[in-house]
């Protein structure tokens, strides 16, 4: 194993028999529950938490014959864009040593990039699969909300997030998606769209006649080298018979604010259960139970998690609820509408996945706001519940650049067909 700090827990979990993933090794993000194997979410709070049950996707992996090789590093509870907020230390980027692997599913992307696993599972609340896929030069798919069961995924922003695959090729990622997609009676938000759908056989690379919409807003403010690499990739698709035109998504200028208000509000509630009674350090405190809860949370959570819980609590509070939470919901509806319109004029939308190349390790921790803005191209997709894929588009100054394709709800086959022309 490399010293890139990819895994929080290395542990081999063998699947049953000879399913479609027999012989395939899978790295699993450490916020996806594995029975009998600790699931830390990159947090000291859950350092010793061993789930008594498997997430539905883990059961699916086992049934498909896959071998889980370990639980990967991540930003604490998924809150970060670099995997540096993990209580277990930063992960190095195998495709660009000395740089962050992106986040929050940095360990999973790095595992695939470093060859530690054939494929991996991550989760994407506002870009947490696509960002590390772009930074590590691998493929990552954020499925339509409701395509993959979230049962067993430790929630951060539960109205926004999905579990999705990483792989070196679009076809391999699609194969993994075949295994995890589909309705689940344990997750009431799942739909049956993935039950009978075959994703791997859509990876034909055929983009002849494909119409690509490029939202101009998602190029504004992006790094020059990133934009150049993006256009090279679009030109490549054009050469194969696709056409592109510019489209507009005026609402996305509010998307980052709306996303953070919603995600933090949900997080403030989702993480409330970690109070020291059953997780983290408990007991031994003077004072009443309320003070004991506060102490346990103060000690168990890292700074970024505390920041988001506090902001989320504030956004939901009486007197601020309408100003922040409700306004963010209105913005979310507006973003959805914009995507619907743009996708009525194009088969898929394309943008750079990240407006910047990977940061150097340690570079960004100082300025959370800069971090939040780096999510500008990925968060609108989560607000709109849509599917998106990030594929390697090339490099700038030797650093990987990702191309993001966005499709209509449950349009994963279309995305896979288009993206497979590039990887």
């Amino acid at each position: 194993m490399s010293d890139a700090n990819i895994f929080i827990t290395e542990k081999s979990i063998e699947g049953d028999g000879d399913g479609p993933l027999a012989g395939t090794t899978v790295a699993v993000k450490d916020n996806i529950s594995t029975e009998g194997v600790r699931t830390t979410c990159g947090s000291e709070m859950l350092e010793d938490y061993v789930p008594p049950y498997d997430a539905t996707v883990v059961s699916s992996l086992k049934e498909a014959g896959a071998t889980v090789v370990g639980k990967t590093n991540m930003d604490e509870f998924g809150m970060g864009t670099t995997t540096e907020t993990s209580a277990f230390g930063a992960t190095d980027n195998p495709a660009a040593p000395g740089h962050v692997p992106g986040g929050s599913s940095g360990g999973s992307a790095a595992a695939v990039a470093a060859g530690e696993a054939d494929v991996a599972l991550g989760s994407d609340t506002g870009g947490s699969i696509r960002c590390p896929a772009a930074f590590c030069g691998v493929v990552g798919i954020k499925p339509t909300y409701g395509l993959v069961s979230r049962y067993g995924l430790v929630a951060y922003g539960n109205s926004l997030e999905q579990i999705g695959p990483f792989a070196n090729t679009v076809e391999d990622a699609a194969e993994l998606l075949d295994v995890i997609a589909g309705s689940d009676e344990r997750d009431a938000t799942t739909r049956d769209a993935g039950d009978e759908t075959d994703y791997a056989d859509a990876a034909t690379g055929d983009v002849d006649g494909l119409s690509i919409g490029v939202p101009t807003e998602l190029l504004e403010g992006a790094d020059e080298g990133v934009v150049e690499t993006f256009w090279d990739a679009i030109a490549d698709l054009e050469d194969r018979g696709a056409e592109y035109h510019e489209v507009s998504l005026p609402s996305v200028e509010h998307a980052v604010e709306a996303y953070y208000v919603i995600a933090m509000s949900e997080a403030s509630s989702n993480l409330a259960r970690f109070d020291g009674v059953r997780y983290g350090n408990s007991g031994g405190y003077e004072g009443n139970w309320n003070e004991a809860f506060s102490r346990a949370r103060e000690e168990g959570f890292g700074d970024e998690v505390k920041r988001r819980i506090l902001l989320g609590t504030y956004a939901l509070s009486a007197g601020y609820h309408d100003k922040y939470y409700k306004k963010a919901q209105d913005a979310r509806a507006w973003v959805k509408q914009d995507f619907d319109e743009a996708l009525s004029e194009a088969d898929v939308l394309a943008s750079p996945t990240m407006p910047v190349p990977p940061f150097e390790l340690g570079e960004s921790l100082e300025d959370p706001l800069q971090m939040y803005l780096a999510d500008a191209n990925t968060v609108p997709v989560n607000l709109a519940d849509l599917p998106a894929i990030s594929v390697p588009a090339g490099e700038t100054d030797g650093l990987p650049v990702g191309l993001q394709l966005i499709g209509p709800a449950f349009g994963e086959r279309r995305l896979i067909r288009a993206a497979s022309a590039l990887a």
Partner: protein
Amino acid sequence: MTAQTVQQGDLVTVIGLEVHVQLETDTKIFCGCSTEPTDEPNENVCPVCLGLPGALPVLNEGAVEAAVKIGKAIDADIPEETRFHRKNYYYPDLPKNFQITQYDEPICADGELEISVEGDRRTVAIERAHLEEDPGSLQHVGGGGGIDTAEYTLVDYNRAGTPLMEIVTAPDFRSPDEVRAFLAELEEVLEYLGVFDAERDGSLRIDANLSIIPEEEIDGDAEEIDGDALEAANRTEVKNISSHKGAQKALAYEETRQKNAIQRGRAVEQETRHWDESRGITVSMRSKEEEKDYRYFEEADLPPLQVSGWKAEIAIPELPRARRRRFQEEYGLSEEAASKLTSTKQVADFYEDVAGEFDPDLAATWVADNLLGELNYRDMEITEMEGRLEEVTRLVELVAEDEITAKNARETVLRSMLDDGASPDEIVEEEGLGKTDEDEVQQAVVEAIDENPGAVEDYESGDDGAINFLVGQVMQKTGGSADPGDVNQLLRAELEG
């Protein structure tokens, strides 16, 4: 409003209720765990009701069905679509530190329930009724047993996730008696609907708001309270009430306490008070409750549920009030008898079984007076007779067919059935209570005398031959099985006596 409520001169009592009812479903509201009470702590639990990281709620439609039944019974509006919210607060009995409940789109809105108090009928408005999950339960050990003083506290999640219906009334009550009548009626209705088990510990929990308002601040009829006057008055919230009798006692205590304070010129604190059932008093909760901000927001893990068609699809049985009226009309019963016979659904169903086979009056006497009377004397419920009601029917049959006397049936057979568990036929046999041939002959003698006043008059005026006519009548009635000499003697004894 009746005079009794505007008592003590010029003060009016205003009470509103929040009633928490555990719904009787096989499984919990958001997971497949059993709701069956168990002595083993943390036995009926799973990742969902323990609130383990990553677990997701899935709505038990049985709980929604029960809620729709309640909605129909209280004549509430049921929306096209209902949804769930999270109510965020920290408490050690709450597995997720938030409770999944309903906020702005409850399953029932604007209902009502009719009650009668000492013959007066009143309608109590029910503002809303919504579904939510029950928290776990805490056991404080040592240090006086309070959460702030205990040495340690044990948490049991068996109860966590039991479906609850919170029923919120308008401030429509003017006396603790009305509250009691309402709760008794509500319990009866819920029990009729088959969604509630009164026997289960903690199945009914009541919070009550009580204010005392000077009469002159109320516009005209005391039934219509001015919202501003109510807002201006300090109210206390009384918690920890668990029965309709307890509610009446707690609120009567609180009403007197507040009126005394006002009459002595002292202010009534706006506060939360705890009903101490064993001491029969309300106690101020020491830690003054801060105004809580529950930060409600939508529960995204549960998609909105379309319930528009449910109201039409879900049937509810005839409710106690309607059944009471029908019993009076159909079986010619008094209001009192009809009330007794509809007090629970089992009693009413059983009465209708018996009344279908035998005379409704006889059935009423047997079910309302004899059976319920003897059960009550033994502190038993009709539910404890489950499986033995056929035996009671058999007993009524024995009486109806004159095989035993009513007195023996009631005083010997029924009591021994309840005390010793024997069947009526066994008891009749054992005690030798079956009517003999002599009883039959004796009865024929009495009848012959009743039916032939002419012959009796002749006999009494000295015509001894008239006795032969009466003997003939008795012989006819007994099908010739009696001995004419005995009959002659029995007749003479009856006529002389």
